[in-house]
């Protein structure tokens, strides 16, 4: 493209965004054994989106990841988290009792394992969706008073 000042920026961003996304999932699943966790992963996911919109413009980003999707994602995240609690309850445990997820006898760890992973997934959805929604709301805001009106 001729006259494009930002070609280097665009190319670098295009390379970086997939890496950031992968790193987000690394942080997500690494949370079990070391530093990391779903909240941080969600923030990193949202950062990829913000970088995209900084370089390619908000309209392009909103076309790729529409606002209704980010908003829905955060709602689904909360639902996943709360849903695991209800699932445990339906299986006869207390609210959020992971042990009850697969009707395990005491000592079994599958329920604990699955429960925490699903819940972290819910947090990932909620945080990345929430942060992207906030970003869209701030960035997409049209000034109500124009500068020359002051």
């Amino acid at each position, binding site marked *: 493209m001729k006259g494009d000042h930002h070609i280097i920026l665009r190319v670098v961003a295009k390379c970086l965004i997939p890496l950031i996304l992968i790193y987000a999932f690394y942080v997500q699943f690494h949370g079990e054994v070391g530093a990391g966790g779903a909240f941080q992963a969600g923030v990193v996911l949202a950062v990829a989106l913000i970088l995209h919109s900084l370089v390619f413009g908000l309209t392009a980003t909103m076309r790729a990841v529409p606002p209704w999707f980010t*908003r*829905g994602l*955060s*709602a*689904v*995240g*909360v*639902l996943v988290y*709360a*849903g695991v*609690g*209800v699932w*445990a*309850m339906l299986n006869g*445990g*207390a*609210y*959020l*009792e*992971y*042990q*009850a997820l697969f009707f395990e006898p005491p000592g079994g760890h599958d329920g604990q394992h699955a429960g925490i992973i699903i819940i972290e997934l819910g947090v990932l959805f909620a945080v990345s969706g929430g942060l992207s929604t906030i970003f869209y709301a701030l960035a997409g805001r049209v000034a109500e008073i124009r500068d020359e009106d002051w």
Partner: protein
Amino acid sequence: MILELLLTSAPDWAIRHAAVLIVVVPLVMAPILALSPSARLAWFLALLATAASSYFAILTLGIVQSTPGGIIEYWIGNWYLIGIEFRVDALNAMILLIVSGMAFLATVFAWPTILADVEKQKISLFLCAFLLCFAGLCGVAATGDAFNLFVFLEISSLSTYVLVAMGARNDRRALPAAFDYLIMGTIAASFYIIGVGFLYAATGTLNMAEMAAQLPALAGNRSVQVGFAFIVVGLGLKAAMWPLHQWLPNAYSYSPSFVTMFLAATATKVALYALIRWLFTIFNLDYSFEQAIFTWVLAPLGIAAMVICSFQAVFQTDVRRMLAYSSVAQVGYMILGISIANAAGVSAGLLHLFNHSLMKGALFMALAGVCLTYKGTTVRDFAGLGRSAPFTMSAFAIAGLSLIGVPLTAGFMSKLQLGYALFDHGWWWAVLFVVFSSFLAVLYVGRLLQAIFFEAPANPGKPRKEAPLIVLVPLWILALANIYFGIDASFPVGLANDGAAAALGLEALQ
């Protein structure tokens, strides 16, 4: 009797999980509402969620009253002694009943006012925020964990800021009001969490019951005292304890009328409950510094709120602001009751809390009905409404009389109890202030009633128009409750006595 019937008919799972389901149902429903495509469906689901919560709250009350110790313990995730505990005794059960009952009535009447106040495509998100706020308030009331209380406090506060700011469609001043509330609310929450931090450092636990057990050994510990001070200021701010009430009048005046009604009936009550829980259950009266706080801080602040804010209410021209200042004054009565620091005083405070949520609920609901049909909330706009909307306005008048404390209304009963408690404690001079403040209430309510019933309409061409039926029915339920509990107060008095006994750790009080 109704309670027994409910208890026997309830399924096992409901009995086992009742305490936690009060919070879980709206918490699960809220994200579903956010995804709901239709506003009407969202309202219907919200109605379902608040109705279910109310059912579980009544069930919880029944369980608390029928178990010997009067305490429900529920460990989230079954992490016994290390996790978060939901702990409901007679005190929380009462608050949960008030909050969920008022939320249900609020949701019923909400539909027409939301249609008028909120943009169509935002209605389901608005109701989602409302359910989150409701879940947060119930969570504050149900939890037995000091840090978890903070989390729920934040859930309810954050969604409240959103709800208040939604008033911007009608009045742009809702935005600064919401922002003020955000700043003050955040300061309050940080003070609370700082206090919890100090206490955690001293005791090594966040569980309230455990903390209460450890604290006597730490009497005189400086960090415990600092933590106590932070918590009292933080929760006092949330409860709009004078002079920390500055956020309240604006937040109540500019938010959508449905939000005003819900907040006035529940939000400050829950913060006040948390204050009672900290003052009496976790700390207790054996601490000398706490005695001093009751006599020299809480009692004067309560009296100042009663007198000063009633004065401010008299001079307001906007009805919503008038009622908002009156709310701060009523919080003063409750604080005064608490500051007597014995079972009778706390019981009087709790009874007034119960009655105040009935009368302010009815007043703001009638106000919402007026906003809906006539727009305009100044006293002048109310002139002659008694003739054009007699049913709405007579319910308003009943609740107004209850606010003054006229005999045969609920307000009279709680002021009577408060008076008895003050006399027994030897604070006869405080009774004078109660009477004086009630006299001020006669002035501001009387000014309104005079405009409503005895003045000619400001605009004679105004057609005769009642609020819609869906507003009138819950409004009259509240108005009749005001009268019923003024004649036979045994139910709320019983709740308040049990609650006070539970707060102070006494055997049931007769």
